C-alpha cells in the first residue's frame, strides 16, 4: 500500500486499533444472530437464506466490510478534512430532497427508494455533520466561547436537525442533542448541559406534578447554584432551605384554611362564608410567584452591583425557566404531534394504555422481563417470536436479546457498547490532531445517544422513539452509516499511529 509522499509508517497489523474492530465485529455478530432469532420462528430457514431478514443482513454485513476496506485501504485519511464541506452541503441537499422525492414510511418522509434498496439520508447526515464539526472546530483560532464560533457550530448541528424534524423523524433528530457532550469536551460551559437538563426536568414536572412544584424546584436549584457559586452555601442552608420547605407547605396550609365549602352549614354567618371563599380563591402558585417577583429585583440589583455575571445569567435563566413552565402545556398540546404526545403521556404514567400506545413498550418489557437472569436460551424465546413485540428485528431487537439471553446477556451487550465508546473516547483523547479528537467524540456521542434512547425505549425509560440500536438492529442503511462512521475514525486513528 502506498502512502502519501512515500512515507511508510508502521504496518497495517500494528496500526489498526484491533480492539475497536473486535468490538465492532462482536456487536455485528450479536445483531445478526438475534435478527435470525427474531425471524426464524415464522419462517424457519437457514440464517443465510436471502428470503428472510437474517440473510439480507448477511449481505449488508458483507457490503459493510467492503466499505470498511475501502475506507481503510483505498481512501486517504486526508480527504475527509478537505471534502467535509461538499459532503455536508450535499447531504443537506439530500435531506431536503427526500421530503419531496422520498417515499412515505410510517408517516415520515425520510427514505429514498431505488428498486429494492432503501436508504435514509438522515443516516449519512450523522457522518457529514460529524466531519463538518471536526473540520470547523479544529481550525486554528477556533474558540467555542466566542459568540461567532459558537453560533457557527450551533448552526452546523441545528440545520440538519431542523430538516430532519421536518421529515417527521423526530427520533433521528434527537440524536443530534448528543453533540452537546462533544461541545462540552471542547470547552463549552457545563452550565449549558445543566440548563438543558433542567429544562427537561421542569417540562416533565409541570406535566406530571404542577407548575407550582416545577417553579419551586427551579427556585431551589437556582438559588443553590447562585449561593454555591458565590461561596455562600451556608447562607443557602440557613435561609433558602427553610424558605423553600415553608413554601412547599403553602398548598396544604391554604387547603386547610379554606376548608371544604360543603362543610359550611346552610344559613351560617355570611362573613365566615366570605372568608372561606377568599382562601379558596388564592392559588399557591400566585403566592409563590409574588414572593419570587419581590425577590427578583433585589437579586438583580445585587447581581449588577457586584458585576456578578453568573448571578445575572442565573436570574435570566430562572425567568426563562418560569416562562417554560407556563408554556409547557402549550408546547405539549399544540407543538408536539399527536403520537408524540401520547408516547410521552404513557412514559410519564399520565395515562395507562397497555393495548394502545403503551402496547409496544408493555410487550417489550414483558419480553425482556421474562428473560430472567440467564434468559430462555438462544432461539427459545416465546414473546419475541410470536410477533407480540412489534418491529422486533429493527428498533426492538433488544427484546430478543433480553428474552433469550437474560440479564447477563443484556448487561454484556451494554458493557460491550460502553467498551466501544470508551475506546473511541480514549483514542480520541490520545490523538494529537484536533480533527481526529473532535470527530472521535462525535462518533462516541452518536453511538451513545442511539444506545441510550433505543435501550431506554425498550425498557420504558424513554418514550417510544424509533431509532435503531447501532450495528445490532436489522437494516442496511443504519449498518452502513455506523460502519462508515466508526471506520473513518479507525482510519484517522491509524494514520496517527503510523507516525507516533
Amino acid at each position, binding site marked *: 500500500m502506498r502512502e502519501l509522499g512515500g512515507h511508510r509508517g508502521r504496518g497495517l497489523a500494528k496500526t489498526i486499533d484491533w480492539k475497536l474492530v473486535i468490538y465492532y465485529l462482536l456487536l455485528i455478530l450479536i445483531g445478526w444472530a438475534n435478527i435470525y432469532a427474531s425471524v426464524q420462528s415464522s419462517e424457519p430457514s437457514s440464517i443465510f437464506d436471502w428470503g428472510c431478514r437474517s440473510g439480507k443482513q448477511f449481505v449488508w454485513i458483507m457490503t459493510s466490510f467492503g466499505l470498511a476496506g475501502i475506507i481503510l485501504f483505498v481512501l486517504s485519511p486526508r480527504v475527509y478534512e478537505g471534502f467535509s464541506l461538499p459532503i455536508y452541503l450535499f447531504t443537506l441537499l439530500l435531506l431536503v430532497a427526500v421530503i419531496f422525492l422520498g417515499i412515505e414510511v410510517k408517516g415520515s418522509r425520510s427514505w429514498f427508494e431505488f428498486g429494492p434498496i432503501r436508504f435514509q439520508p438522515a443516516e449519512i447526515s450523522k457522518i457529514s455533520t460529524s466531519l463538518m464539526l471536526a473540520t470547523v472546530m479544529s481550525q486554528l483560532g477556533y474558540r467555542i466561547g466566542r459568540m461567532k464560533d459558537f453560533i457557527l457550530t450551533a448552526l452546523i448541528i441545528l440545520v440538519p436537525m431542523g430538516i430532519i424534524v421536518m421529515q417527521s423523524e423526530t427520533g433521528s433528530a434527537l440524536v443530534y442533542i448528543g453533540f452537546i457532550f462533544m461541545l462540552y469536551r471542547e470547552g463549552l460551559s457545563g452550565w449549558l448541559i445543566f440548563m438543558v437538563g433542567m429544562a427537561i426536568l421542569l417540562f416533565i414536572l409541570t406535566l406530571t406534578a404542577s407548575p407550582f412544584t416545577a417553579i419551586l424546584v427551579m427556585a431551589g436549584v437556582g438559588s443553590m447554584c447562585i449561593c454555591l457559586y458565590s461561596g455562600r452555601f451556608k447562607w443557602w442552608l440557613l435561609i433558602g432551605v427553610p424558605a423553600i420547605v415553608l413554601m412547599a407547605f403553602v398548598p396544604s396550609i391554604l387547603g386547610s384554611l379554606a376548608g371544604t365549602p360543603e362543610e359550611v352549614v346552610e344559613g351560617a354567618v355570611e362573613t365566615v362564608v366570605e372568608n372561606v371563599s377568599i382562601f379558596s380563591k388564592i392559588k399557591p402558585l400566585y403566592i409563590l410567584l409574588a414572593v419570587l417577583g419581590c425577590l427578583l429585583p433585589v437579586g438583580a440589583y445585587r447581581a449588577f452591583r457586584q458585576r456578578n455575571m453568573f448571578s445575572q445569567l442565573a436570574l435570566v435563566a430562572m425567568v426563562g425557566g418560569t416562562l417554560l413552565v407556563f408554556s409547557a402545556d402549550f408546547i405539549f398540546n399544540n407543538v408536539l404531534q399527536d403520537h408524540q404526545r401520547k408516547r410521552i403521556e404513557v412514559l410519564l404514567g399520565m395515562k395507562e394504555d397497555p393495548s394502545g400506545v403503551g402496547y409496544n413498550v408493555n410487550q417489550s418489557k414483558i419480553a425482556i422481563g421474562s428473560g430472567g437472569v440467564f434468559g430462555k436460551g438462544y432461539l427459545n424465546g416465546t414473546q419475541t417470536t410470536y410477533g407480540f413485540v412489534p418491529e422486533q428485528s429493527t428498533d426492538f431487537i433488544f427484546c430478543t436479546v*433480553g428474552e433469550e439471553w437474560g*440479564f447477563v446477556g443484556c448487561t454484556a451487550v451494554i458493557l460491550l457498547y460502553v467498551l466501544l465508546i470508551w475506546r473511541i473516547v480514549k483514542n480520541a483523547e490520545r490523538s494529537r490532531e484536533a480533527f481526529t479528537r473532535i470527530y472521535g467524540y462525535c462518533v462516541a456521542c452518536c453511538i451513545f445517544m442511539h444506545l441510550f434512547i433505543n435501550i431506554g425505549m425498550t425498557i420504558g425509560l424513554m418514550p417510544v422513539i424509533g431509532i435503531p440500536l447501532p450495528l445490532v438492529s436489522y437494516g442496511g442503511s443504519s449498518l452502513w452509516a455506523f460502519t462508515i462512521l466508526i471506520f473513518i475514525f479507525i482510519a484517522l486513528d491509524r494514520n496517527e499511529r503510523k507516525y507516533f
Partner: protein
Amino acid sequence: MKLNRENKLLIGLCTAAAILIVKLFNIQIVEDKYKLSAENNTMVYSTIYPTRGIILDRNGDIIVGNKVAYDLMVTPKEVTAFDTLALASVLDVDPDVIREKMKEYYNNRRRIGYQSVVMFKKIPQHTYMKFAEVAYKFPGFRGQPRSIREYPFNAGGNLLGYVSEVNAKYMEQHPGEYKAGDYAGMTGIEAAREKELRGEKGYNIWLRNSKNRIESRYNNGEDDKEAVPGDDIMTTIDAELQHYGQMLMNNKVGSLIAIEPSTGEILTMVSSPGIDVDMLADFGQHYNEILSNPYKPMFNRTVQAPYPPGSVFKLVNGLIGLQEGVFTPGTTYPCSMGYHFGKSKLGCHAHKSPVNFEESIMMSCNAYYCYVLRGILENPKYACIDDAMDTWREYVMSFGFGQKLGSDFPSELGGFIPDSKYYNRYYRKGGWKATTVISLSIGQGEIGCTPLHLANLCATIANRGHYYIPHIIKDSENVEIDPKYKEKHYTMVDTTHFPKVVGGMYRAVNSGFGSGGTASIAAVEGLDICGKTGTAQNPHGHDHSVFICFAPKDDPKIAVAAYVENGGFGNSYAAPIASLLTEMYLNGEIGEDRKGLEKRMLDANLMDRVKVKK
C-alpha cells in the same frame, strides 16, 4: 485520576449504562409481573363452541335440532405435496378452489405461521367420512367438529330464523358478547331467544413453545372451562299444524296465522313464500339466491306486511258503532248495490235489502258500514270531525291495530291507522268530512295492518272482548316468559257487544249456500266455525283474499287469519285455507267431503298472478 472533562464524560457514560442496567435488573430479576404476563402470552386458548339450544314445539317435538358437521382445517406449514385432484374429488369441490386457497395461504404464510386455518366450513358428515378414510394421504388437513342446525319439520324459515356467523356490525351492536367466528341467531325464533339458545363458550388452554407449536395442556387442563350448552326453548308452535299450513300456502304469496285465543299462543305462523329449511342450515351459501328471489322470501309477511284489511275490518267498525251508540243491533240500513253520497257511490254486491247488524256481517254489506262510520264520525257528541276521528282511532288501537302488539317475535311492524292530523295534512283542516274517508268503513284506504293484527282481532272476538299478546315462546323450565303475555288486554268496546258480532260471523259461515252468507265454503260440520271474509281491493292486480275465523263458536280453541295476495274474493282462497287449517287442528284430519277442496288448495298456484319487480 484527574477530574477533567474527558473523565467527567466517561463517568457520565458509565452512569448512563448503570441506569440502564439497574432498570434491566429491576424488570428482569426483581419484578415478576412481567414473567406472569409472558406466561399469559404463551398460553393459547382454544375455544370450545357450545351446542345451541334445541327448539321444541308445544308438544315437545323437536323443530330445530343439532347435527354434527365438520370444518376442514389446514395447517399450511405441515402440508406436504399432495394430490389436489384426489382431495377435490373426496370433498366434492373444484380443484381450482383448493389450489387458489393453498396459494393464498402461501402468500400469507408469515401471518399464518404454525396456525391452522379453516379451509372449508360445515362439511356434511357423509362427505367428511369419505375424507377421513383417506386423511392419511393429506398431512396437515384435519376436521374439526362443529354442531350445526338440523330441521326435522319444514316449519318455515321465517318463523325459525337462521343462524350465521356474526359480522362486524353485529358485534358492534352487541359489544363484548361476540367474537369473530361466533354464530348467532339472526331472524325468527333463533334471534328472539338468542340469549337462551346460544349457551356459553368454553376453552382449553394449551402451552406453545417458541416455534408456536402446541406442546401440552396447561396445568393438565385444570383451568379449562367446559362449554355450557344453550337452553332448550319450547315454542307455542304446533309443528304438525305449521307443516300443514306451510303446505297449504305453498305456491301462494301471503300469510297464515293461527292463535290459541285463550292464551295468545301462536300455533302456526306461515309467511309464503318462505325460506326452505334445507337452505336454512347452510344459510350463507344460499344467501345470494335467497336475496335475488323476486318474491322476497326473507320478508316475513306475517308481522311485517302492512295490508289493507278489507271487509274483515267491518267487525271493528261495527263494534265501535255499537259502543258509541250510533246504532243498535236491530238497526237496519238499505243497500242499493252500494252506498250513494253526492255523485259518488261505494259499490256493494247483490244481496237482500235492508239488512240488520248480524245480516250485514253475514252478507258483508258495504253500505251498512258506510252508515255506521258516518254515524261515528258525525256523532254530535263531538265538537268536530277531528275529535270523532281521533276517538275512532283510539277505539281501533285498543284492538291492537296501528301499533306493535309487543310480540316476542322479532321485527314486528306496527301498521298504520290514520288520525285527524293525517287528513288535515292532506286535505287541510276542515277540508274533509266523513264521506271523504268513507272507505275506512270497509277496511280500505289509508289503513295498514299485518296478518298478525288480523289474527289478534279474530282471537279478541273469539274471547268476546279481550286478547293476550300473541307470543311464540312457551313457559318452560329454562325460560320464563314476560308476565305481559299472561295479561288480558281489553278493548274499549264493552264485552256485551261481542256476542252479536260472533252471531254474524257464525251465520256468515253456517247459513248454507244460497242464503247470502259469504263464507259458506268454510263450513265444517260439527265445528261451529265463525268467520268473516274480506276482499282487499288491489289496484295493482287481482284483489287480495282475506279471511279470519275461529272455532268452535262457544269454546274457541283456535283463531286463524289467512291473507292470500291476489287470491281474489275472500272465499276463493283465504276462507278454504283457514277453514282447512282449523279443521286439521280440531279434528286431526280432513273430512271426506272436503278432500276435494283440500286438494284444490294444495295444488293451487297463484304465483303467476303476483306482480314482481324483475
